């Protein structure tokens, strides 16, 4: 299907141009901050001197991309039908603490225990997203406002839970509170063996490369299949492209809003799990925050398509990873945030431009193939 290929190619070109431009613009910011842009650029590719540190940095990079990818997927499911789930942040934090707590209350064979934790996380995320969905469907409350407000509730509720009802024992001298430690059977095995394939030493920090990466890939494939191949996905697409047409075709907008929002929330619920099951074994009061908001940028960058989101998550993780290296190179680490922000802005612009270009090309192509000036014969 050359038409589709054309469109995909344009998208890639647009994204590359946006990234190059973003680096150029960020260089100006780096110079303004009194640092050297070349040093900053090299810092991004500086994975350390020893083989061990290279492995550790690669692991950190991959580990960072996993929750970003899941978060991007969660946001994209809503975006596909013009539903703005800004509440991913609250959904994943609430889901993470409940899942970590529930997981710590029992022990079972590893597959069962992990499955239960995953299901609990998805259920909590989905249920929490159900609130704004029901409010929108029954009372017409804008989901953007509802989810933003619910974020505050979720964030404060988690900090209450981690200190109160769900708090485990605090180790001597520790300032952070945490949920009870998960048993060994709840921990997701790492996939450090891939380093053996390349003859590299396995990483030693942060629990290695999290095995949840594989689950994220499976999740990506499932989300892709649901959105692109099923009738439900068709309903999502139709509602997103043209609401009135979907309605007239028998797609019930209320059901679609609830289904898409709950699906988005359920995926969001999984964002915290790679870190809990791969490394920490608990939810604590300095658990990684902001993944839900980053997911919005990742979804935008990836144009709401699983493959695009994977690349966007890798790019963001790649940039995030360099925080330490930048500081060593005496470049302010906030450069990373500037670059990410500029990329997202430029990609949104580039998306719009390439989209129009692609549609124009399609029209022209159709017209050419038909020969726009061939007379239309008239059936008498």
């Amino acid at each position, binding site marked *: 299907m050359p038409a589709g290929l054309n469109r995909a190619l344009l998208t890639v070109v647009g994204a590359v141009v946006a990234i190059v431009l973003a680096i150029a613009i960020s260089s100006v910011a780096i110079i303004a901050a009194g640092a050297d842009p070349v040093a900053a650029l090299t810092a991004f590719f500086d994975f350390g001197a020893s083989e061990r540190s290279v492995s550790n940095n690669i692991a950190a990079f991959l580990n960072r991309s996993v929750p970003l990818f899941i978060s991007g997927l969660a946001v994209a499911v809503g975006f596909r039908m013009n539903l703005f789930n800004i509440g991913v942040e609250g959904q994943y934090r609430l889901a993470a603490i409940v899942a970590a707590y529930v997981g710590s209350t029992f022990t079972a064979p590893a597959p069962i225990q992990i499955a239960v934790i995953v299901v609990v996380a998805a259920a909590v995320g989905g249920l929490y997203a159900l609130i704004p969905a029901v409010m929108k469907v029954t009372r017409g409350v804008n989901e953007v406002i509802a989810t933003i407000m619910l974020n505050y509730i979720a964030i404060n509720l988690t900090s209450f839970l981690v200190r109160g009802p769900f708090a485990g024992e605090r180790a001597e001298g520790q300032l952070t509170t945490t949920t009870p430690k998960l048993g060994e059977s709840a921990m997701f095995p790492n996939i450090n063996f891939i380093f053996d394939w390349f003859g590299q030493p396995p990483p030693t920090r942060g629990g290695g490369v999290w095995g949840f990466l594989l689950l994220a890939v499976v999740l990506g494939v499932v989300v892709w299949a649901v959105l692109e*191949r099923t009738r439900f996905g*068709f309903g999502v697409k139709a509602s997103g492209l043209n609401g*009135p*047409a979907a309605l007239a075709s*028998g797609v019930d907008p209320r059901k679609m809003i609830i289904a898409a929002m709950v699906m988005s929330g359920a995926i969001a619920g999984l964002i915290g799990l790679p870190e809990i099951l791969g490394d920490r074994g608990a939810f604590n009061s300095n658990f990684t925050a902001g993944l839900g908001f980053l997911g919005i940028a990742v979804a935008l960058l990836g144009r709401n398509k699983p493959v695009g989101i994977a690349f966007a998550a890798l790019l963001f993780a790649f940039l995030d990873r360099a925080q330490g290296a930048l500081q060593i190179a005496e470049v302010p680490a906030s450069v990373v945030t500037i670059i990410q922000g500029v990329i997202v802005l430029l990609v949104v612009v580039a998306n719009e431009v390439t989209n129009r270009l692609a549609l124009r090309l*399609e029209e022209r192509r159709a017209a050419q193939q*038909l020969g726009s000036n061939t007379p239309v*014969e008239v059936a008498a």
Partner: protein
Amino acid sequence: MSADTLATARPAVELEGITKRFPGVVANHDIRITVRPGTVHAIVGENGAGKSTLMKILYGMQKPDEGTIRVNGEEVSFRTPSDAIEVGIGMVHQHFMLADNLTVLENIVLGAEPKKFARLDTAFARRRITELAESHGLRVDPDKLVEDLGVGDRQRVEILKVLYRGARILILDEPTAVLVPQEVEELFQNLRELKSEGLTVIFISHKLDEVLGIADEITVIRRGTTVASVDPGDVTARQLAELMVGSELPTPETRESTVTDVVTLKIGNLTMGADGHRPGADPAKLREEGRRLLLDDVSFEIHQGEILGIAGVEGNGQSELIEAIMGIRPAHGTIELAGQDISGWSTLRRRESGIGYIPEDRHRQGLLLEASLWENRVLGHQTRKPARRGIWVNRRASRADTQRIVEAYDVRTPGVDTLALALSGGNQQKLIVGREMSGEPKFLIAAHPTRGVDVGAQAAIWDHLRDARAAGLAVLLISADLDELIGLSDTLRVIYRGRIVAALDPTDITPERLGGYMTGAIAGTEES
């Protein structure tokens, strides 16, 4: 002034060799038109022949690739519409460009406000408008809100707006498309007065009777180029139409009746309030309370093999009627399909049980423009064969069936993976008709099925409707094209302010009389 003296005067507008290339649309090719001053010059051609492009060029909205434009003998080159206004060319668009929440006066001066100490000089504007209105016989009340005006009044405001800017040459793009016959006559009276004041009118239309009634000269455009320049005295409407189409002309007449006595759709006392739907409310009570009703006690039956036409000025309840039958908007009353009460069913269930729907606005309700043709084939059929395979969309079968529609309905497209937006309006419409005829519908709603499509596609769509009717389909036809309504329908109903006010026999009615019912000028006597 007689025609002889005019012939020697310099032409008001002269177009020579105008060519405009475009992807996807019929471009203009070597257009030659000469418009004499103080005349009404009609430009006729079927939809998509290139009339609108030509007018956009003349009004500075688009630049021609080749050719020259002369206004009053001087060569001009427009970059924007304001350049055109400068030399005295004004345009009245087919779709009115008025701000509903402003008064007539404010609308007219909008963008050309007379100022006195940085404030709007209302007194001056009012004087000017009254002057213009009186000298051209265009009666309007400058202080009325535009939202309270009827279509005819709005059009007069548009004309005044153009005159206010000093236009001496007026372009009217399909001005009669939205008017009923009585309003058309009024417009023509206005145009004659403008002409007698020495203004030049360029009148674009594809309604030939009207063109013959008002024009002093006619230029015919076919497939983007001027094919003839004729005197209205020398041609008949039929000859003109054949010039336009370039071959024999289709008519919307249905042949022998295929109406059976099996009722397919039965609508009973359908009532819809304007201010939201309350499930338990009693329609009679709503009426008593004097609430505004969008649909008021509408009842009719459609039989197998019958086309029931609904005539009415747009906005009198047609859209609400359709949406009530489709289950998109709730209403009181009963809707029965083949003896089954479906009034509580969802839109999806109604579609599944055999209702097809050709929407009035295909871009709004009928298509996913940014999706492929085969995905558009799935739309509305996502729960039925061939589109469905369990929880999946059957892509292969959908593609194959789209190919079938493309061939059977002569949809001109490079392939089924092409995006819907790349197709011309006529081809999009043929795809929709093909889709809605799939899955053996029992009942079809056809709302303006041939709006904005070319004559070829129009004839094809009429044929498909007639064939389906012969095969036992019941059709509810809603159209603004009175010839289409009268020609295709077996039975006619007139809707006015949400009420069915007349039942008429299409074999025994003229467009003029029908127009009388549609505007409420003739009181509702049941004739049929």
